[in-house]
């Protein structure tokens, strides 16, 4: 009889429940409790998904780079760091995609166009493509350590795009507005509950990232184990044949 073992532990289950509650409150806060904007009306509610999505993407790609750096610098070359890097990049790609889609819809409603080739939008699209490439590079084949080394180098180079994306609104004249809360002058330009909802979005999306990351990393470990088992079985078969 075989037993199915999931990737959850009591701690991740608690984290999952807390994340679900936080997201439900975010939905209520974003759609009901927070007020409309004086210019944009209800369209401003897009911000509570758009900004936390790109925040999680930055966080995820930053974490990918950190894990890659640890893998490269650590003598033990533990593959857990490579798996964390890969899992984090997958989540980052998902959230950049969410950010691009919500940004495009928000742009149509406020700017009057889905897309413009301005510096912020272009650099974000480039970031998305780079990490799609990173994920493809991870699947190019070879041993686990070859995969880890190859992707670690790419992750350390790709992370340099993040400051370019974030500061693109200051470096170039863009249609995209400048930062509201990450302003260099630290002047908060969001009214009352809007600011709270945005911060709540950042917290709940970060919790979602942590939950997804842990599960995806564990799933990757299981995938690697399955691959290892296949190799072990093949060697065992050869040994049996040789022994005949």
């Amino acid at each position, binding site marked *: 009889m075989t037993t199915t073992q999931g990737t959850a532990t009591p701690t991740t289950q608690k984290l999952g429940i807390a994340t679900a509650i936080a997201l439900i409150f975010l939905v209520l806060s974003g759609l009901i409790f927070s*007020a409309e*904007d004086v210019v944009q009306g209800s*369209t401003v509610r897009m*911000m509570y998904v758009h900004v936390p999505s790109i925040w999680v993407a930055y966080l995820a790609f930053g974490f990918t780079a950190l894990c890659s750096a640890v893998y490269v610098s650590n003598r033990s070359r533990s593959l857990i760091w490579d798996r964390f890097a890969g899992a984090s990049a997958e989540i980052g790609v998902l959230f950049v995609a969410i950010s691009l889609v919500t940004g495009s819809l928000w742009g149509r409603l406020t700017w*009057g166009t889905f897309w413009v080739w301005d510096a912020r939008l272009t650099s974000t699209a*480039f970031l998305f493509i780079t990490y799609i490439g990173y994920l493809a590079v991870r699947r190019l084949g070879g041993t686990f350590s070859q995969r880890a080394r190859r992707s670690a180098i790419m992750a350390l180079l790709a992370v340099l795009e993040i400051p370019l994306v974030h500061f693109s609104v200051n470096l170039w004249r863009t*249609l995209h507005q400048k930062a*509201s809360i990450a302003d260099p002058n630290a002047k908060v330009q969001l009214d009352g509950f*809007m600011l709270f909802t945005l911060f709540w979005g950042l917290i709940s999306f970060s919790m979602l990232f942590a939950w997804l990351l842990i599960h995806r990393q564990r799933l990757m470990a299981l995938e690697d184990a399955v691959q290892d088992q296949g190799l072990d079985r093949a060697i065992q078969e*050869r040994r049996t044949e040789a022994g005949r």
Partner: protein
Amino acid sequence: MDLTPRPVTDAESRAQIQRRRWVPMIIVALALVAGGVVVSQFLTSAIDYYCNVDEVGVRDGCVGQRRIRVQGIVVENSLKQSNGVTEFSLVFHDKTLRVRYQGDPGGVFQECIPVVAHGRVVSGVFDSDRIEVKHTNQYVEKNKTRFDEATKETAACSQLPG
């Protein structure tokens, strides 16, 4: 013990292995092409100079009848819409520019909002074929003023002799 990889005889398994090998390579190639397209689109769109209203006719690249992008704020009470044509004035650093646009700009276009107009200056008027509405990084609650007024009135009421 012979550890030489054996040729895969099963056709389906062989196809699966081929697919597993080629798909990531194709994705990497597509990502490289897509990256090139994105950069070239950005550079192509950057060919049109991005000028503020006060730079039109003054700054290098913003002079003559060449195609440019002009940024400014829609002047209050300057907006007129008739026969499918939208006309308004843009202001930036005390300089104004009259803009003519065929159609409805869309988005949250209105007076006192920053916009970017694409087009060229013809006889002193900016003939635009594309308007993009900028929104500032300030978010103000819609009923904030009403709430403030109500709070003031409540405070005034509390001072009335009971």
